[in-house]
């Protein structure tokens, strides 16, 4: 199952998984986008594709629908959560509604779904849950304040999930994404060339056998993160990003 399937890394994951002739369950907000993606995968790869159009902004209702969708498939053994939302105006004066929306789409729904579906996944021999963070959460900053908080929270949850999973057959992976060619990064001045969504998906799938993973993608962001964390506050506060 891919939650957040219709664009960016989610769409690229769909294509890569379908190439391996694996049946898919796709979740996204727009039925038209989802329908077209599903048709393409069915025609091109001959795989079974089931879809669910649901919007994460409806929080609990979304969680319920996705869990029902997942539990309805006895063979579901892997869930990817490339779902996410960021807003251009995510700064100190962000409204309460928009704050809730960002937390919902990036953190709450992912946690809610995992909490309710894990027992179903554990019926499979080697289940996998993959979450996605962001380099935005390396250190707090004045732009994307809520988004980075949500992603930091998600990373913490996935660490806890890894701790829980160590006693089970469940595999847990968390990829903190750097610059990837998506709508989010398009048109922006970036410090480094972005990774294509296709290459990001390939790298993610290469790791699917790993029991527990918490890593940056591309991996060089690990070094940048290390440096950023240790920049003295007197200097860091002057960086505008």
């Amino acid at each position: 199952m891919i939650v957040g399937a219709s664009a960016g890394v989610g769409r690229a994951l769909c294509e890569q998984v379908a190439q391996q002739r694996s049946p898919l369950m796709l979740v996204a907000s727009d039925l038209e986008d989802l329908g077209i993606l599903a048709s393409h995968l069915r025609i091109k790869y001959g795989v079974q594709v089931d879809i669910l159009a649901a919007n994460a902004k409806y929080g609990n209702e979304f969680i319920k629908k996705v869990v029902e969708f997942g539990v309805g498939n006895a063979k579901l053994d892997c869930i990817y959560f490339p779902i996410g939302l960021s807003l251009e105006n995510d700064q100190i004066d962000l409204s309460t509604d928009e704050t809730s929306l960002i937390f919902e789409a990036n953190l709450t729904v992912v946690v809610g779904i995992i909490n309710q579906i894990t027992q179903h996944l554990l019926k499979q021999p080697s289940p996998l849950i993959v979450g996605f963070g962001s380099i935005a959460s390396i250190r707090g900053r004045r732009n994307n304040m809520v988004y980075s908080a949500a992603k930091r929270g998600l990373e913490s949850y996935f660490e806890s999930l890894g701790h829980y999973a160590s006693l089970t057959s469940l595999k847990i992976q968390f990829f903190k994404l750097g610059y990837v060619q998506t709508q989010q990064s398009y048109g922006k001045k970036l410090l480094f060339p972005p990774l294509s969504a296709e290459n990001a998906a390939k790298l993610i799938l290469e790791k699917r056998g790993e029991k527990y993973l918490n890593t940056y993608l591309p991996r060089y962001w690990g070094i940048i993160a290390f440096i950023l964390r240790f920049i003295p506050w007197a200097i860091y506060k002057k960086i505008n990003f």
Partner: protein
Amino acid sequence: MNKKQGPAVNNSNYNLEKLSSFDRGTHGWSKIYKPDRYRFWKDSADLQKPRISRGAGLSYAAASFLDESISISHSNFNRLIEFDKKNNLIRVESGITLAELFSYLELNGLYLPIQPGYSQITIGGCIASNVHGKNHARDGSFINQIQAITLFHPTHGTLEISPDHEKSVFDLTCGGFGLTGHILFATLKVQPIPAKCVLIQKIPFESAEEGLSLLNKQALDCDFSYSWHDMCNGVSDHFGKGFICQGKFVSATNTEEEIPEDSFLIKQYSLFNKIPISLLNRASSFILNKLYYHQQISELSENIPLYNALYPIQKNLIYFGLYGQQGFHEYQVVIPDESLSIFLEKLHQFLKRYPSCISLASGKSFGGKNSLLRFTGKGTCLALNFPRDNQSPNLLRFLDQLTIDTGSLPNIIKDSRISAGIIDQCYPEAELFRAQLRAYDPKRLFRSELSERLSL
């Protein structure tokens, strides 16, 4: 390339980029949106500026951008939608490239007979330019294999158009240079592949007239048919000496390797087209043409994979890079049968008097009837490539006048500088096209440098 973030349209950002026509004759700064969701199209009505669709951006003329305006890339809309195996129909998003479509169709023993020679062109681009393939006389042009199109225009909404439904909009859209709206989907008629191998036979000839006459005689008996001419040496008595390539499907083993990956060839091309000078001049073209001719006729027949036969430009992409930053001109024209001799004679005389670097000349046999602004008509299609330099304006003026005088038809999509005046004299239905377009889109929401230059 400078990048600048712009305001989002439904969460879609834009890039401000300097774009160039493929012949590097026209440049402009455009805001390029690259949407990946269908709700973008409905919200695109909010865009305050004129806009135009952009596929691969490989048109020789600037058909997919306008300076200080908006281009909307279809690169994320490149998927297969529906496949009707029984009736050999496939529905695709317009951003799919010929290569992507070929790789799927080939697995199912199918292909599109009418395709241009470069596989990175998108289906939307093929429709907008009404491209032709390797045997126009027999197969016609791209419109002949379109079953239906889904078109989006902010005023008209989503339209399903075909030869049987909304025919006037369909006719305006095929070869309409993207000016009727965004082509979202196309349903195409595909054919079974007769064989995976093509036997290419080369027939040398001593002059352009001899070669083109032979080309026209045998075109209907071949699956692929085109000619190559050496017109670099204008003073030669063997003006336009060359060879015909006749291709027929055969059940045999390939003797030629498949063309290397696109990314490798594109890198080579990208490297060369940044060179400040043209590496193709009269001297180098003279030598290269001689070498190419002798290399080609050293093996008069060979079996090649279907992919290589459909996309011969693929392996020769670097040729276009050799023109460097200044770029090149391609003058492609359909010459009526009755004017062919005089066209060639006058061209020969001009080149004797004003030696020019015609680095590539090729011919195809054409058929059909011209309508609106589509590049179709009965006769011989001759394409001349030459570097953009100090001599080219003189040659272009001559070719424009010769085209008018002989009742020939210039290819709009291949010429980034051709004027409205020339088009009006050559295309009898140019004004009809304008009138129909204005009736359909009075606000003229869709514009490009090409449309502005030709007052469309």
